[in-house]
């Protein structure tokens, strides 16, 4: 079989491809987390997003039809949840037991979805999913309204620094698309979320099972005109808060292939850098200027957040893995003792005096939990006393390290204000941690009124005018 190519069709194809390539290369990525309780229909919602944005292939549909008969919970219908419930153990139990990452894209954006389980013992998974997310989609079953889990999920994503939330009121078909029900849930959530420092809460009535207001508009609710879930995800600002953070890069690796070249490799945690910029190595305090921004594709005139580069400095100074290269004008805090909010993930208990490894940026140090300051109520966020911590507890503790490290408060910088604690014996990740601002310090700018892409704060505008 030979295919004779029509030459005009081919050039059309090439032109369309070039346009596609250009669009894909400049498209932004939105990372979001979907959280809900058992039976809220979270897996179904994600399955629906994948299905209606045409990410599902024919062979996956036929596998789905086969699996739906074996494991499905939708009778004779296709169970979209099975698209995302990947592990056999999950299919047998009919629940999601671990974080899964899903990918889909539209003509406007690429999306990475963290699908996290909702039952109480899996707090750490939700914190993990939220740690890199720009937006949280919190599911509520319209029949049940707000439950304890909803409050927990909202509080948790707020703690992890997520500023934009979708309240997805699911299963609206099962309450006859009642506007009163929807309005009551929305108002109840707004009331609770007032304390949570969200920049935006977008409530959307939907039915994941039938597809209403997920990708396609729902015709059953003419009273709702606020757009679909996908509409929101395609237009919500990405990285809006991080645009003006100062330059930081943890040194991952010193690249010294020969006596002619010595570079410090890392991924820029925040801010921008240019040759000539004054930098400080922290915590050592040595200073220099950036001579080159080396990459395999050639030197760059400028680099910014999330880029992996190799910096060559103007001076021969001693710097190594575990240290941070920071803008001299805005250095990090150097400390060997600070308070951190922990999400305790280990099955073993944590008692004061416990000794663990802390990984902070690229530094791994010995850490002692000096004191449990308070346990945080996962529903209200209120502090209370605690002697020990059990799995999935959230608590503020006082950490002492065996040497100083450079950190920011998590509220200022998610990358340089976060840490993990590692159990020395099991080598498992025992806790996720957020560095808290020192007591008595004024509230950091980043946690004050959020700036928007379209309306940057005064500082942001000033910074841009000054070319920073």
């Amino acid at each position, binding site marked *: *079989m030979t*295919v004779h190519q029509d030459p005009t069709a081919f050039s059309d*194809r090439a032109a*369309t*491809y070039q*346009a596609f*390539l250009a*669009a*894909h*290369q*400049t*498209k*932004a990525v939105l990372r979001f987390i979907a959280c809900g309780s058992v039976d809220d229909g979270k897996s179904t919602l994600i399955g629906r997003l994948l299905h209606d944005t045409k990410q599902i*292939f*024919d*062979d996956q549909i036929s596998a789905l039809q086969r*699996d739906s008969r*074996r494991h499905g919970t939708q009778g004779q219908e296709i169970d979209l949840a099975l698209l*995302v419930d*990947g*592990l*056999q*153990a999950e*299919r047998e139990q009919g629940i999601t*037991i*671990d974080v*899964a*990452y899903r990918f889909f894209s539209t*003509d406007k*954006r690429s999306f990475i979805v963290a699908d996290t389980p909702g039952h109480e013992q899996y707090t750490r*998974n939700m*914190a*993990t999913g939220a740690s*890199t997310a720009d937006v949280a989609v919190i599911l509520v079953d319209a029949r049940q309204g707000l439950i304890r889990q909803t409050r927990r999920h909202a509080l948790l994503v707020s703690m992890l620094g997520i500023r934009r939330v979708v309240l997805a009121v699911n299963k609206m078909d099962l309450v006859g698309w009642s506007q009163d029900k929807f309005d009551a849930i929305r108002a109840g959530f707004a009331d609770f979320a007032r304390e949570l420092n969200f920049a935006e809460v977008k409530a959307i009535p939907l039915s994941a099972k039938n597809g209403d207001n997920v990708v396609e508009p729902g015709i059953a609710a003419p009273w709702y005109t606020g757009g679909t879930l996908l509409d929101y995800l395609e237009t919500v600002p*990405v990285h809006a808060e991080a645009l003006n953070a100062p330059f930081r890069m943890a040194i*991952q*690796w010193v*690249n*010294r292939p020969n006596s002619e070249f010595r570079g410090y*490799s*890392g*991924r820029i945690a925040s801010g921008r850098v240019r040759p000539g910029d004054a930098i400080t190595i922290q915590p050592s305090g040595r200073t220099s200027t950036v001579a080159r921004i*080396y*990459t*395999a594709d050639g030197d760059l005139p400028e680099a*910014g957040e*999330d*880029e*992996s580069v190799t910096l060559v400095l103007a001076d021969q100074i001693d710097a190594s893995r575990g240290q941070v290269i920071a803008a001299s004008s805005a250095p990090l805090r150097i400390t060997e003792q600070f308070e951190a909010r922990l999400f305790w*993930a280990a099955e073993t208990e944590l008692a004061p005096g416990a000794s663990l*490894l802390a*990984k902070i940026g*690229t530094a791994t140090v010995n850490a002692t939990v000096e004191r449990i300051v308070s346990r945080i109520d996962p529903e209200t966020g209120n502090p209370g006393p605690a002697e020990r911590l059990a799995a999935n507890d959230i608590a503020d503790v006082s950490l002492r390290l065996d040497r100083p490290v450079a950190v920011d408060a998590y509220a200022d910088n998610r*990358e340089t204000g*976060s840490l*993990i604690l590692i159990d020395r014996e*099991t*080598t498992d*990740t025992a806790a*996720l941690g957020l560095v808290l601002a020192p007591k008595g310090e004024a509230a950091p700018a980043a946690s004050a009124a959020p700036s928007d892409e379209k309306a940057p704060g005064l500082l942001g505008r000033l910074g841009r005018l000054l070319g920073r």
Partner: protein
Amino acid sequence: MSAALAAAVTPGAPASADRLSHLKRLEAESIHIFRETVAEAENPVMLYSIGKDSSVLLHLALKAFAPGTLPFPLLHVDTTWKFREMIAFRDARVKELGLDLLVHTNPDGLARGVGPVSHGSEVHTDVMKTQALRQALDKYKFDAAFGGARRDEEASRAKERIISLRTAQHRWDPKRQRAEPWHLYNLKKKRGESLRVFPLSNWTELDIWLYIEQEKIPIVPLYFAAERPVVERDGQLILVDDDRLPLEPGEVPQQRLVRFRTLGCYPLTGAVESDAATLPEIVGETLAARTSERQGRVIDKDGAGSMERKKQEGYF
């Protein structure tokens, strides 16, 4: 194809100039993972399977450590049933780039003559891939192995961590996975345990193709459509790559215009009919594809949850 492409190029929101492109962000994340692993592991290795994902993985590794050379060797687990063009490509790349390549074949399997035709895909994969990989990792005492697996490939992979712990017996326990928040990777392990590291976790098949095109990365010619001798078996088009593939009575190889979306052992890897002979055409076809990439792999169909089970047994 045109419908999918047209839908994909509808002008979206204009991207701001200071925003990192999707591919650049993926590249930066992968490079970060390579550097973290090399900084913390004692004896890392990169699993090189010669396919397109391995080609991208190698390209990223070279970028991560430039201007230096690769600080680890490559390991190819050779089942002896790879397409001949794959082996030729492998040897040419190794020579061109001056790479340190280790090749391991399960000597026991070789002596017993284990193969996909005589023993079936399950036994062949277990002996010549899973067991062979374990042998090689034990032999060289590698404590971290980079692989090119992606989360979009298969359901159980979507739940695996970027840094994935294996027991001393190389088993994966999906219920005992470490939290992996932010970009803080825990690379600690107990004596005897090892890590599988997946720098391409967040890439999709489309990202891989676009990146290959953008970076002009060489790949095995089998990915491009050409007239090739194939036989049709159980709905799969199998290339008659050498005389070890026994033909059924009356079965005659036919020249068909085909290409491969994945590469593995040739009797286990189905071709797809396609006229896509250039990267843009492959991308166009990928966008419009109505069957997912791994469909061409016989091993994924060995039973529900088959990949999860293989991984628990130590398959990569």
